[in-house]
């Protein structure tokens, strides 16, 4: 089920393949305020947006190899908003000098019947969590500071408990494939957040 790296595939029309460049870090609860102040100063001047999302990860187990993963996300703060379905590919194994994790990313907005649709397709929900936090933006850079909550009873998002005493900080950019200047900008921005939080590329497979 592994697709070849997107950057070597020829562009045959249709949509542009968007890549997500990602840097992740975390910050302890007590340091959250100073991080938010710093982000407010560094990022574009807008009202800080907070969000509360419920994300469900669906797996399709094929006969061979890795299962296919889709992420369905809905807003708990704005229930009428459309659901968001996202596919994230494997991280591109490019040169090690690239500073950010790069992976193929496909995003679509869907209607509210998404879970039933996925179930009918054969996907099964693997896990779910609730994320609450703030989102900042600087140009095309997006910084998301969120606290992850574990859903204790499946489907019940009222009853949640925090996963840890830290907030997850993610710096991401969505750009078409092949733009490597993006990771330089991300690294420069990450430098400005040190030593409050160390944003680095964390390969999820290493922690499997």
């Amino acid at each position, binding site marked *: 089920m592994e697709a070849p790296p997107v950057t070597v595939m020829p562009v045959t029309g249709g949509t542009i393949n968007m890549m997500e460049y990602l840097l992740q870090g*975390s910050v302890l609860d007590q340091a959250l305020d100073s991080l938010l102040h710093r982000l407010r100063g560094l990022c574009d001047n807008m009202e800080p947006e907070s969000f509360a999302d419920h994300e469900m990860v669906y797996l399709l187990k094929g006969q061979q190899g890795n299962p296919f993963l889709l992420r369905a996300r809905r807003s708990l703060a704005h229930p009428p908003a459309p659901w968001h379905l996202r596919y994230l590919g494997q991280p591109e194994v490019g040169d090690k000098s690239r500073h950010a994790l790069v992976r193929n990313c496909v995003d679509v907005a869907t209607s509210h019947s998404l879970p039933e649709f996925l179930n009918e397709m054969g996907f099964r929900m693997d896990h779910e969590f609730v994320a609450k936090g703030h989102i900042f933006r600087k140009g095309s850079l997006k910084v998301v500071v969120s606290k992850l909550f574990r859903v*204790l009873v499946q489907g019940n998002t009222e009853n949640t408990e925090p996963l*840890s005493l830290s907030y997850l900080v993610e710096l991401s950019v969505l750009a078409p494939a092949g733009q490597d200047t993006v990771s330089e900008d991300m690294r420069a921005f990450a430098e400005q957040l040190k030593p409050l939080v160390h944003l680095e590329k964390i390969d999820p497979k290493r922690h499997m």
Partner: protein
Amino acid sequence: MQQREEKQLEASIESLISRVAYLKNSLQNFIFKLENEYDRLTWPSVLDNFALLSGQLNTINKLLRNEKTPSFRSQVIIPLLLSQDRDEELAKLTEVRVPVFSHEIVPDHLRTKPDPEVEEQEKQLSAEAARIGPEAAQKQIQTLNKLCSNLLEKLNNPREERDTESGALRQNKASFNPADTTALVAAVGFGKGLAKCRPPGPVGPAQPGQGPVPAGQGPTLQQVAIPGCSGQQAAIGGPVPPQQPGQPGKIPSNIKTNIKSASASLHPYSR
């Protein structure tokens, strides 16, 4: 002799007027920017404006200190005629800021001594300075110089030295926990630590199998991860036979049959 002095005086006054005009312009621009574009203003551009103003003040100072400029202190200005009428010439010269050369503007514009309050304060300061005596004054000057040079040294030193000492300071104020980072990234990446609880076989024998897995995450997660997962398992462990169809991934055998049936029928709509 007198003519030369007069010419020098005129020339220096001309250049002084032009310098002051520059200063006034840049002040005007800066105030305009502050009043109208304050939401778009960045700190570096404010600093630039201040630097510009300070540069212009410096040139004025240099001009005044120049040996070619005659001493302005020796010149005396006496108002010969004060009137309450509006003077058009004066208004034009001063851009309508001083339309009337009257009794109100004379104390402000022709002032030679500082304000009375300022004079009081200066007198107090000089009295105090005289009071402490020359040796104490010298010692204070020396400590001030030493403090300034220390500060300059600290600021000019290479970054690594500064980082090592501030790193030591910040050890006790660590603002992030790398173990938490890995735990959170693993949770978002593939649901590690979240209650997915996929037992490998039937629920009973799987429980001790699942036991060590969440316990392994115990030291990394500061919150209690184990009861979360085992709580779910206890919920399943109760009603073992009636597997709720809504529970995902609890028994892989179920899932396999589901997928087999789906692939066997393949595309039902294509028939």
